[in-house]
């Protein structure tokens, strides 16, 4: 520990500001509140603040950030934003420092987010121990009120001087270069600093009735307690304030922002929040968390359970910003969890304990690439009134290299990006196919493009089908409507190495004959002896001809006989289809592990970050879209 007088500390800050190679950020007053902002001199710095309006994450993950700019005038060129300027942030409270450590893990899991880490690596964090505590703060309960890791320098106010703890070489060097008269701490300083930290822990005006480490366990049984969630969320305005001010929330939206010439523009990402109405809505209009109680519940589960299961931490540092920003006063986690705890005790729950921490192994494989590869539409085959098959080639001549069941993010610059399943088998080289339904803005625009037009492609994303585990098995494909599109990538793969598989069935259903996709290919299947193909329509209008089966897809299941133990059923269709098909397969004694399905959600980033495709603890874009039924049958939002 070192000591610096307040006068010398001010000189240190002013020296930093004078050296223009730094962005110097500190806590300043803002009306009756406080906010991090650029410092013009040391006098502006308010280290006696209680809490800032927004956490310092805004400097690493800004409210609005350009991912790249594009220029369509000479073909296409995309430019990444510039490198970050070195930044020093002064006056970060310990809980906000811990929150940054949470963000670090989230933004580097699976793939690293270069926009976040460029700025994070170029920054120096000077923390300060709390001198005042917001009345909503419960960071002491979350273990985040005093810390000994995560900062470059940490200050403790000792009256006329600061005690400085050094947390990194970066911090040490900053001090050596810009600060004068820094002396080693005396024994008395160490004692006073220790006493100050003890006092901080007793400043809390919030009170948990139980140790917060019980939260993940407590949540386990509360999911289906809908009256609890309805009661607590009754006054929810769905305004998103609680999540927008949260230092550990990281969900975002991605949008295109063309300029008025329409030829140039930028793709931006902005903060989003799972409390907001359209957060889990997909282009077809289906909203997977349409009601306030389900979104309200999702927030608590994400913080207290889902991220705990993945990272081993409760995603809350106790800053209390959510509570203080909620006008109807229903966002205070302390109140909610106390109520949940007491209710479960009243309902005769046995003693609740802490969940064992999960094994955490964060792997990073390269950077996320938000800039799409340029690609050309090489074929456009209209299939129905609203569906078209596009053949696409990457302009750099490389193969997409996908697995059956994966998807890509398709960009139409100026409009945006949409997730589209790959319809072609990877055994077909040189190009890939996308069967696209005209639904949202991107897909509607895509339908207006022609052969030779340029689009952007990111991916492939998702896990795809585990092809090796299917080898030697009998396969029962069940496709409803557009569900044939992703299944076709696997089906054609199977046909390409037909001898590796046992019997193959394909059951395909759609609303009416004019909606049939891949009609010619399917007709050719009927002639094959090594495939049992059957199709059905829900109804046939009077002026159309249909000689086949009429009825929903499940009416085809009794028509075939298969060995449930030896057969793997592969399902894809509209959300409503799964429930009925699974029930019928189970009635035929098919084990859960033999049912595999592909799910559709709002997959925006494709890399498990933006949060839109999340169903309970699962990120569909990363953990799926292909799931084994045995793994998701207990996931309430999945089916």
């Amino acid at each position, binding site marked *: 520990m070192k000591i610096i007088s307040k006068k010398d500390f001010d000189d240190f800050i002013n020296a930093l500001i004078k050296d223009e190679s730094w962005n110097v950020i500190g806590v300043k007053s803002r009306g009756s509140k406080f906010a991090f902002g650029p410092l013009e001199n040391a006098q502006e710095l308010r280290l006696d603040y209680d809490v800032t309006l927004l956490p310092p994450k805004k400097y690493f993950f800004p409210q609005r950030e350009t991912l790249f700019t594009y220029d369509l005038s000479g073909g296409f060129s995309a430019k990444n934003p510039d490198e970050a300027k070195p930044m020093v942030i002064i006056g970060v409270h310990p809980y906000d420092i811990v929150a940054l450590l949470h963000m670090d893990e989230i933004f580097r899991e699976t793939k690293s987010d270069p926009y976040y880490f460029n700025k994070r690596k170029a920054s120096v964090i000077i923390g300060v121990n709390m001198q005042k505590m917001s009345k909503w703060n419960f960071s002491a309960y979350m273990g985040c009120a005093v810390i000994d890791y995560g900062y470059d320098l940490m200050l403790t106010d000792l009256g006329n001087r600061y005690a400085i703890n050094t947390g990194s070489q970066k911090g040490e060097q900053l001090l050596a270069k810009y600060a004068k008269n820094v002396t080693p701490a005396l024994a008395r300083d160490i004692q006073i600093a220790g006493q100050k930290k003890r006092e901080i822990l007793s400043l809390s005006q919030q009170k948990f009735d139980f140790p917060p480490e019980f939260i993940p366990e407590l949540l386990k049984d509360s999911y289906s307690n809908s009256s609890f969630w309805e009661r607590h969320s009754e006054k929810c305005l769905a305004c998103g304030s609680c999540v927008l001010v949260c230092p550990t929330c990281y969900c975002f939206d991605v949008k295109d922002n063309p300029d008025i010439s329409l030829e140039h523009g930028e793709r931006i990402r902005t903060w989003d929040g799972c409390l907001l109405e359209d957060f889990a809505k997909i282009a077809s209009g289906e909203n997977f968390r349409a009601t306030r109680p389900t979104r309200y519940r999702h927030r608590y589960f994400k913080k207290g359970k889902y991220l705990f299961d993945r990272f081993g931490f409760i995603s809350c540092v106790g800053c209390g910003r959510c509570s203080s*920003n909620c006008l109807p006063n229903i966002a205070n986690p302390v109140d909610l969890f106390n109520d949940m705890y007491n209710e479960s005790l009243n309902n005769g729950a046995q003693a609740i304990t802490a969940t064992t921490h999960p094994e955490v192994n964060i792997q990073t494989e390269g950077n996320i690439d938000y800039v799409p590869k340029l690609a050309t539409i090489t074929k456009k085959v209209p299939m129905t009134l609203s569906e078209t098959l596009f053949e696409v080639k990457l302009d750099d001549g490389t193969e997409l290299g996908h697995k059956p069941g994966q998807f890509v993010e398709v960009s139409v610059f100026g*409009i945006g990006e949409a997730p589209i399943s790959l319809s072609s088998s990877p055994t077909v080289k040189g190009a890939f196919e996308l069967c696209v339904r005209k639904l949202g803005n991107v897909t*509607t*625009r895509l339908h*207006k493009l022609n052969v030779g037009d340029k689009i952007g492609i990111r991916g492939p994303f998702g896990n795809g089908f585990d092809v090796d585990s299917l080898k030697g098995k009998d396969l029962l494909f069940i496709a409803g409507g557009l569900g044939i599109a992703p299944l076709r990538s696997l089906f054609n793969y199977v046909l390409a190495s037909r001898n590796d598989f046992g019997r193959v069935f394909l059951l395909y259903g759609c609303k009416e004959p004019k909606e049939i996709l891949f009609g010619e290919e399917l007709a050719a299947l009927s002639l094959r002896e090594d495939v049992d193909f059957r199709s059905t329509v829900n109804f046939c209008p009077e002026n159309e001809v249909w000689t086949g089966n009429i009825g929903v897809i499940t009416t085809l299941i009794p028509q075939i006989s298969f060995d449930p133990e030896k057969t793997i059923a592969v399902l894809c269709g509209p959300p409503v289809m799964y429930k009925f098909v699974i029930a019928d397969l189970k009635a035929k004694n098919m084990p859960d592990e033999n049912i595999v399905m592909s799910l559709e959600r709002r997959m925006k980033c494709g890399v498990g970050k933006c949060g839109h495709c999340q169903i309970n603890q699962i990120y569909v874009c990363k953990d799926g879209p292909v799931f084994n039924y045995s793994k998701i049958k207990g996931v309430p939002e999945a089916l």
Partner: protein
Amino acid sequence: MKPKVAFFDFAGCEGDQLQVANLEEDLLALLGQVEVVSFREVMKEHSDNYDIAFVEGSCTRLQDEDRLKQIRKNAKIVVALGSCAAIGGINSLRNYKDLDSVKKTVYGDQAKLFDSYAARPIDAVIPVDAYVYGCPIDRDDFLHVVKSLLLGKKPETPTYPVCVECKKNENVCAFERGQFCVGPVTRAGCNSCCVNEGTICWGCRGLVDNPNENSHKEVLIKYGLTVDDAIGKFRLYFGWQEAKR
């Protein structure tokens, strides 16, 4: 060929068209993309041959309906411009009063010469393809809608309230400043411009699709408004929407 654009006004102050006329350099860039064939505030010429019609003002008379229907017939795309056209706006305040006394207040003893009925947004009369909310409209939001239409894209309108933008802009909440705000139930898209300037949100962009009105009225009362004042806060701009809900 550049799409032909026309502007029309009904019951309103024409402040939204003024915002368009005040686009400055953006207006020149915009004129590179569209051909304006009718715009009473800035030009004498008029043509009935247009693709996109921007309609300002609410519909307050039976005879307005014919004119609206004719615009709908001529245009491929009809855009409601500003609060009066989009949500009924401030004009709808009068729907809560006796129509005869309203007419008397405005026209005095000539009242019987003027025909009028309850003020309403234009989509109560004709189908509307896109909306530019606000009183007045926000210029950037107007450009956003125009760019979307030129790209053949349905303009994305926030379904979340102004609080989202307020939080991103790191404003001190109006309630913390001892003021009363309807931002928590008002459709965003204005970048919380009024609160950024230290005032409150009056609700000019209308209610979000699924507002929790009762909860927010409770909030207003909890923070010290009388029930009547809370209702008044909601009526200023939400009058038509509330009556419909």
